[in-house]
């Protein structure tokens, strides 16, 4: 945009139709393109939306804006703690989206959004215009929830709730911990990314500790009264980690009525409202979450700090040309998971192509399937199928979904196998 007056820029837009404009002029739409959809965020929601838009209608030009050229998947990141995977194995790129599906990738960050002009300005200097915008920017953290725990403190006491360096840091801390040490895991109230994630993490840490530092303990301090797949996790922990006995590798404590208020960094100690204190050798503090900063800054969130949407199309309640999907959007009761983000992206891509082509919008169907590993050979799952009810709200389909019905060894081994297979499929479907 440098050197271009607003008037000249708008004239340029009118002349070109929608497109991507650099500082030295505009790039025209590819010949035949009937609309330009910009997707912000290259996680499971954004990458799936970009790919499926191109699959559904090759005459729609799609630009994906993502700050990182490579993306480390949160699914699978707990496997690091058990020594079952490394970061490289969990890293994907956008080459296939570009080469096989013709998605244009801009490795850049959005600096501002001009919704009235349907225009995004990027930190790198480019401006991008859109006919429709799909936002899938993920989560951010509330750094004001616990005194003493802020972004700087997270470098010492990692949340590891966005996979990458934080995950490695936490894994190294676990490995360096003395035998007989205590891991404190702080889990927020709902809603947050990946409801069963903390409990799978505790399982994977316990698996590693059982082999290497068996006198240790993981203390889960939970802001909730109950948690996802609780009965399955607790049965698995009893079977493998002594859960319920004095020597259990895992203890779970609900602090729903006694929230943790303060971190004493020096003493690695957490203090609750009633004055209870917990000291740990390794502290994994997962803060409460919000929609990503860009969504907050651009006024796409409501008082919950998540983005309200019309479920059928994913359109923001605040702007009909902006769709929001994935963890930052309010799709409850669909949980915030990678699988759900992929499913929301497909429903959104179908709706967006219908809106562009002015055809009727199909009934939306969403699916969530979530596997967790308790040991490398013991998997469990929960599934949910969702539809719009008569009031146009998202509702689980009655009589469907639910947790693993069989928990015998054979079923547990099958579900452990499916955990890995579904991870690979989800990656292939989203990024491949």
């Amino acid at each position, binding site marked *: 945009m440098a050197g271009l007056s607003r008037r000249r820029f708008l004239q340029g837009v009118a002349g070109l139709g929608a497109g991507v404009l650099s500082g030295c002029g505009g790039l025209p739409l590819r010949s035949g393109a009937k609309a330009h959809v910009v997707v912000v965020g290259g996680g499971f929601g954004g990458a799936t939306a970009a790919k499926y838009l191109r699959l559904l209608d090759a005459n729609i030009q799609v630009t994906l804006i993502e700050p990182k050229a490579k993306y480390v998947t949160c699914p699978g990141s707990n496997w690091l703690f058990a020594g079952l995977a490394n970061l490289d194995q969990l890293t994907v790129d956008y080459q296939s989206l570009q080469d096989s599906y013709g998605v244009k990738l801009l490795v850049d960050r959005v600096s501002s959004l001009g919704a009235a002009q349907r225009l995004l300005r990027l930190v790198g200097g480019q401006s991008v215009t859109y006919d429709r915008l799909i936002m899938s920017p993920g989560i951010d953290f509330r750094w004001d929830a616990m005194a003493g725990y802020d972004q700087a403190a997270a470098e010492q006491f990692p949340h590891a709730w966005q996979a990458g360096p934080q995950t490695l840091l936490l894994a190294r801390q676990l490995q360096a911990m003395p035998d007989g040490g205590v891991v404190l895991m702080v889990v927020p109230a709902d809603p947050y990314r990946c409801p069963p994630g903390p409990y799978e993490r505790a399982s994977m840490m316990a698996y590693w500790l059982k082999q290497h530092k068996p006198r240790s303990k993981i203390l889960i301090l939970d802001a909730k009264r109950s948690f996802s797949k609780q009965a399955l996790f607790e049965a698995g922990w009893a079977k493998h980690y002594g859960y319920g006995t004095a020597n259990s590798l895992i203890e779970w404590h609900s602090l729903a009525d006694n929230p943790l208020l303060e971190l004493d960094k020096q003493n690695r100690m957490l203090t609750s409202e009633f004055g209870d204190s917990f000291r740990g050798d390794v502290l994994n503090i997962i803060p409460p979450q919000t929609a990503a900063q860009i969504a907050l800054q651009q006024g796409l969130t409501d008082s919950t700090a998540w983005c309200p949407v019309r479920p059928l199309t994913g359109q923001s309640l605040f702007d009909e040309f902006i769709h929001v999907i994935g963890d930052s959007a309010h799709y409850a009761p669909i949980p915030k998971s990678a699988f759900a983000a992929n499913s929301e992206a497909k429903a959104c891509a179908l709706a967006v192509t219908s809106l562009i082509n002015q055809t009727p919008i*199909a009934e*939306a*169907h969403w699916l969530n*399937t979530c596997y967790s590993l308790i040991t490398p050979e013991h998997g469990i799952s929960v599934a949910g199928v969702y539809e719009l009810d008569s009031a146009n709200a998202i509702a689980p*389909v009655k009589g469907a979904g*639910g947790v693993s019905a069989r928990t015998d060894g054979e079923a547990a081994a099958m579900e452990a196998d499916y955990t890995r297979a579904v991870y690979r499929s989800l990656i292939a479907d989203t990024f491949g």
Partner: protein
Amino acid sequence: MKRIFYAAAALVASALNSIAHAEIDARAIAFNCRNCHAESSLDAKSSIPSLKNLSAQQIRQALLDFKYDKNPATLMPRLAKAYSDAELAAVAEFLSRN
């Protein structure tokens, strides 16, 4: 008795559905199958079967068997129960062609 009930329920459901969903957009359901049933050649040894090279009839029968608990499995019975027989037939038709 149970089987007769299911058969009757299925008939009623499919009759109702042929009215309620005169035009089922199978894509909206079937796209979600790909999350687990990848078509990638990289994963030829996956324990989750690829749906490629299956006929519409084969997929439809498998889905109905999951739905009516004739084929025990860990996950698919939980999912197939969410859909009408007509929807499952449409999904099978779509998956066999795509």
